[in-house]
């Protein structure tokens, strides 16, 4: 059993006991524990079930590479699934539950997958089985997969925590706070660079304090402490713990994932902070990860990475078992055996797959009385939910059992792989180091930044420099090089001298034993989380999935939440062997950020709740809110769709607003309309290019409705232009078009006609704009102003300046509703005051605020087009029969040349008409008019479509506009519009102006 030792635990404060629970069981740990070490100290080795076969799984690793030990952490609004116990710091009151089991962790029905179906669930099973027969998919396969699939459960409650981003800028960012990272940061800092050093763990120093050796003759911990003190004293160096380098992106962009309060969930402040860092140079001192060995039963709880066994003993004072067999192909695992022996635990044997055995450490192990077997490996592990023993075999053979050894833990080491993830994220290339059996960064092919120069330098073990001495000198030169590349040429010190026992050469072992038979290979796990075995990769190779990327997807190797940190190299070595090619020929799969999963909330940052996105509000927004506004998003604005009274439906509210406006008086908040000033000696010329109409002839004091097209000829925007003075125009745009039309104007002025003397300014938000519409609109205005707003003084399509309710205003005699109407424009800070004054003065006329839907219906009654309804980016003004708005005198305007193209000038285009259903009903929006016959695809031919359709309260019937093939020439014809339910609505082609064709109501 695993238990807490009386000695050891350099990261613990054993005087502070912490209470926590696992699956409802109350357990105790101590300050400094990870959840993993605390569980192990309580003999809770079994922590979860595997994804496919629901096999019992225990903790394998001690860091971010852990594939098995994922739990649901916390409760309710603090619940989060799939949390690695190895990177979860224990805190008082922590609660967690195991995942992927039913009904219980100890007894799981899904294990039957393994016992009964394992041979039916080989690689590619899903692809092969679920193609046919189809009914089986629905009734058998899908329920089966749904029952067994998935790891953690999605949270049910809203996340209670807060998250934020942080932008930071450094010359040099060092990722990884082991001895290499510390030394690199020191070197760069001494040279004068502004340095950030980040470490994902809550403590500094990495593996060195566990693995031993000496630095400048001292214990590595002493070096760590001294270097930290030095770094802290340097103003140009920032140190952050609990911060992981999540990803490296183009041009030196780095994401740092800071887990601010995971270890103290009741503290104030954000839970996670995502640092968006821009670095001149990045030093990846990210260390290395130990590889498992592929032998039968290597997934049984109690089989662990040798380094992890050592970590638990040294860092947390936890023994994994009383009797631990060590199996290895390299010298490093001997450290584990020695550590365990020194802690008073039994190591029945070290099985060294190398015939030649190990070096100095092997001698030391033998001197300590540990049995060392060379050229031997594990044939299979005995046990179910816990290791009970191992069967030993010759590594060179096929697995014939030579001897069985009783043990309750196995410490395995297949060698080490540099953590090249961050190096590779942005294109850094790797080389295969045959001698060390690993991929390491190719310094000639670093990722390149905006200058074309490399911007990532790997250092220490991440660069394949495993020996303490060479890791430190490598880090020193990495730090110096990074500082130099960012223009800092100050003097750095020298690397300290690191000394550790030298290692004998590693011997690659990808399968144990090397000739393992199929029964063994089917029990030799590569990917523990996704249940991929040696036999699966070999099957994929046989079936032709020769590319490593294909084999990965076919078998799901490395596709779990651990992204194959333990499995990828072993898997591609097996694949290479199966294909009979060298490992570099197979290559690696692509390393993608993030290095380990980061919370989605940290990515969202502040884009949540009331800061999810900017919502634009007019000065009258609060009034609308208080008066029943039913909101409609228009771009980022919120506009009232209608103002609902209590007990009133949305539809009834719209009808009421229209009737009241037509009969008496309505108010519209039109503040969102775009307003752009165009000024200069060449303003008229510029306006003539922007609009299809002639704008330069517009007289000051007058307004003109205009159309804007892109160079492709299609309508992009429309609105009323007012000429302010000889040199100045005020362009009204659609609500959604304000920013894009302003950008469009500036683009032409800056990139094409830069010699034209024109300035523009987007003054959309300077003004609150209120449409006062209806027969009583002049009357209400006259109550609030002493200025003359009579038809004679201010005729239709004129504008002037008046004072209304004591506020200086521009008043435009324009009408979108088809009624006598005035648009009042006042400084936004007075908008609410004017609105209130109009409401008060209009009370005697039954003044009715109306929303966008009433506006839409009233404009449709008048046959006015709406950008986005009648237009969709494929419609030219000629299609909308707006020839009157297209100047024939002008030689040029944006879109003119395009409108001359053959297809645009084709008389056979769909054109705008009114549509009137024969039964008075409302046509469905977007409905198509069908024609005789079918097209090449067997679909019904079409001859038109509905662009706007409403119930008109004024006419008490459905009215619509649509684009119909040669429509204007076919007045009176009746078209068929099929509905979704298969029935047909008949509609007659009519004039699009349904109401007050002669404009008698607006022009008074």
């Amino acid at each position, binding site marked *: 059993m695993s238990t807490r030792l009386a000695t050891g635990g350099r990261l613990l404060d054993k005087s502070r006991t912490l209470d926590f629970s696992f699956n409802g069981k109350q357990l105790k740990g101590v300050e400094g524990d990870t959840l993993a070490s605390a569980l192990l100290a309580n003999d809770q080795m079994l922590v979860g079930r595997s994804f496919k076969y629901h096999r019992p799984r225990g903790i394998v690793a001690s860091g971010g590479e852990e594939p098995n030990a994922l739990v649901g952490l916390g409760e309710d609004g603090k619940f989060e699934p799939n949390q690695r116990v190895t990177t979860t710091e224990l805190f008082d009151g922590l609660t967690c539950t195991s995942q992927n089991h039913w009904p219980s962790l100890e007894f799981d029905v899904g294990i039957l997958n393994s016992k009964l179906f394992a041979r039916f669930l080989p690689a590619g099973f899903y692809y092969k089985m679920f193609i046919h027969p189809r009914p089986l998919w629905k009734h058998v396969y899908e329920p089966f997969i749904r029952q067994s699939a998935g790891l953690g459960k999605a949270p049910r409650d809203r996340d209670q925590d807060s998250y*934020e981003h942080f932008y930071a800028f450094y010359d040099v960012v060092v990722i990884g706070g082991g001895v290499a990272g510390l030394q690199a940061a020191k070197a760069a800092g001494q040279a004068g660079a502004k340095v950030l050093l980040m470490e994902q763990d809550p403590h500094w120093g990495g593996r060195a304090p566990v693995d031993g050796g000496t630095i400048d003759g001292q214990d590595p911990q002493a070096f760590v402490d001294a270097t930290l003190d030095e770094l802290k004293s340097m103003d140009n160096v920032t140190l952050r713990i609990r911060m992981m380098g999540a990803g490296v992106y183009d041009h030196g962009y780095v994401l740092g994932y800071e887990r601010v309060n995971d270890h103290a969930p009741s503290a104030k402040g954000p839970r996670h902070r995502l640092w968006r860092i821009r670095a001149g140079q990045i030093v990846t001192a990210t260390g290395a990860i130990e590889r498992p060995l592929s032998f039968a039963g290597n997934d049984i709880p109690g089989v662990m990475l040798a380094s992890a066994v050592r970590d638990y003993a040294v860092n947390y004072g936890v023994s994994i078992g009383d009797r631990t067999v060590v199996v290895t192909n390299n010298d490093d695992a001997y450290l584990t055996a020695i550590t365990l022996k020194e802690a008073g635990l039994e190591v029945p044997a070290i099985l060294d797959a190398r015939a030649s055995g190990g070096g100095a450490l092997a001698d030391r192990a033998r001197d300590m009385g540990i049995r060392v077997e060379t050229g031997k490996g594990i044939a299979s592990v005995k046990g179910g939910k816990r290791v009970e023993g191992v069967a030993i075999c010759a590594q060179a053979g096929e697995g014939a059992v030579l001897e069985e050894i009783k043990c309750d833990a196995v410490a395995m080491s297949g060698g080490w792989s540099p953590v090249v993830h961050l190096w590779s994220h942005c294109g850094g290339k790797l080389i295969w180091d045959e001698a060390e059996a690993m991929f390491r960064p190719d310094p000639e092919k670093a990722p390149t930044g905006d200058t074309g120069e490399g911007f990532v330098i790997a250092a220490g073990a991440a660069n394949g420099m495993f020996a303490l001495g060479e890791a430190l000198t490598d880090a020193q030169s990495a730090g110096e090089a990074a500082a130099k590349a960012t223009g800092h040429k100050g003097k750095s010190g020298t690397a300290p001298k690191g000394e550790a026992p030298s290692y004998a050469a590693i011997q690659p072992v990808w399968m144990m034993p090397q000739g393992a038979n199929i029964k063994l290979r089917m029990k030799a796990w590569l990917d523990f989380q996704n249940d991929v075995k040696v036999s699966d990769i070999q099957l994929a190779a046989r079936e032709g999935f020769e590319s490593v990327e294909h084999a990965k997807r076919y078998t799901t190797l490395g596709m779990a939440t651990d992204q194959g940190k333990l499995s990828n190299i072993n898997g591609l070595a097996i694949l290479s062997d199966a294909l009979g090619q060298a490992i570099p020929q197979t290559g690696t799969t692509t390393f993608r950020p993030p290095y380990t999963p980061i919370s989605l909330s940290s990515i969202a940052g502040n884009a949540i709740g009331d800061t999810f996105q900017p919502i634009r509000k007019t000065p009258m927004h609060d009034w609308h809110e208080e008066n029943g506004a039913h909101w409609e998003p228009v771009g980022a604005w919120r506009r009232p769709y209608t103002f609902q009274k209590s007990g009133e439906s949305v539809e009834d509210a719209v009808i009421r607003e229209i009737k009241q406006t037509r009969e008496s008086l309505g108010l519209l908040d039109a503040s969102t309309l775009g307003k752009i*000033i165009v000024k200069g000696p060449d303003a008229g010329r510029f306006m003539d290019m922007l609009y299809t109409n002639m704008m330069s002839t517009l007289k000051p004091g007058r307004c003109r409705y205009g159309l804007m097209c892109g160079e492709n000829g299609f309508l992009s925007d429309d609105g009323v232009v007012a000429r302010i003075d000889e040199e100045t125009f005020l362009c009204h745009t659609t609500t959604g078009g304000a920013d894009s039309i302003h950008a469009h104007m500036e683009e032409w002025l800056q990139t094409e006609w830069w010699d034209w003397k024109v300035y523009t300014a987007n003054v959309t938000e300077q003004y609150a704009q209120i449409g006062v519409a209806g027969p009583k609109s002049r009357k209400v205005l006259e109550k609030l102003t002493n200025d003359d707003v009579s038809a004679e003084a201010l005729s239709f399509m004129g504008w002037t300046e008046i004072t209304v309710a004591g506020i200086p205003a521009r008043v435009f005699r324009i009408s979108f509703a088809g009624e006598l109407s005035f648009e009042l424009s006042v400084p936004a800070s007075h908008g609410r005051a004017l609105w209130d004054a109009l409401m008060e003065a209009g009370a005697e006329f039954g003044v009715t605020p109306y929303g966008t839907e009433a506006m839409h219906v009233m404009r449709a009654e008048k046959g006015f087009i709406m950008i986005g309804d009648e237009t969709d980016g494929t419609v030219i003004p000629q299609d909308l029969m707006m020839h009157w708005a297209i100047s024939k005198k002008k030689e040029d305007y944006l879109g003119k040349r395009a409108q001359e193209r053959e297809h645009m000038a084709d008389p056979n285009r769909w054109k705008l008409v009114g549509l009137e259903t024969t039964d008075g009903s409302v046509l469905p929006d977007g409905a198509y008019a069908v024609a005789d016959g079918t097209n090449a695809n067997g679909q019904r031919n079409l001859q038109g479509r509905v662009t706007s359709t409403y119930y008109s309260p004024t006419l008490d019937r459905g009215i619509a506009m649509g684009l119909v093939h040669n429509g204007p020439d076919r007045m009176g014809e009746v078209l068929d519009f099929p509905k979704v339910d298969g029935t047909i609505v008949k509609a007659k082609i009519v004039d699009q102006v349904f109401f007050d064709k002669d404009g008698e109501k607006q022009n008074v």
Partner: protein
Amino acid sequence: MSNAAVSALNGATVQGFARVEEMGLQGMITLRGDLASAKVKNAVKEATGQDVPALRSLNTGDKGAVAWMSPDELLIMVDYAGVTDTLALIEAALSGEHFLAVNVSDARAMFRVSGSAAGVRETLAKLCPVDMTPGAFEPGMFRRTRMAQIPAAIWMPDAETVQIVCFRSVAEYTFNLLRDAVAEGGEVGLFS
């Protein structure tokens, strides 16, 4: 008339590790023209008592302030009530020139974040992709940038204060961003 005028958030405030306040109405004029011309220099001097600011900087005095917006645009800041007079003054000074001067006072909202030197810098560093390190950003500089999802301009009147200008319609969004950014416990500890 100005007694009826209300700013977007009517002076709302919130206190976290720094204090956030909407500053009420501020007179602002967009002036576009040839910034190198003697007439523009003169107009700016008359309007604000200040010289035309250098690239990405801001000149401030008792009479007003002027900020560099782009190679042909300045933002002139004076009392809200004085904008009409200042505009008239500018227009007279630039008579005959090609220029554009327009009142944008009501189109904007202005915020002040004040507190410790480190605190105000951190607050902005949470929202803008701008290096807020002392030395990299200092009083006198004027920076237009992105603040979360909106455009904004920022400057530091002094070491313990940052001011922000954004569009009026997104004043509430901006206030809420700042409210969250200064929340207690969110101190980063980077600039202290």
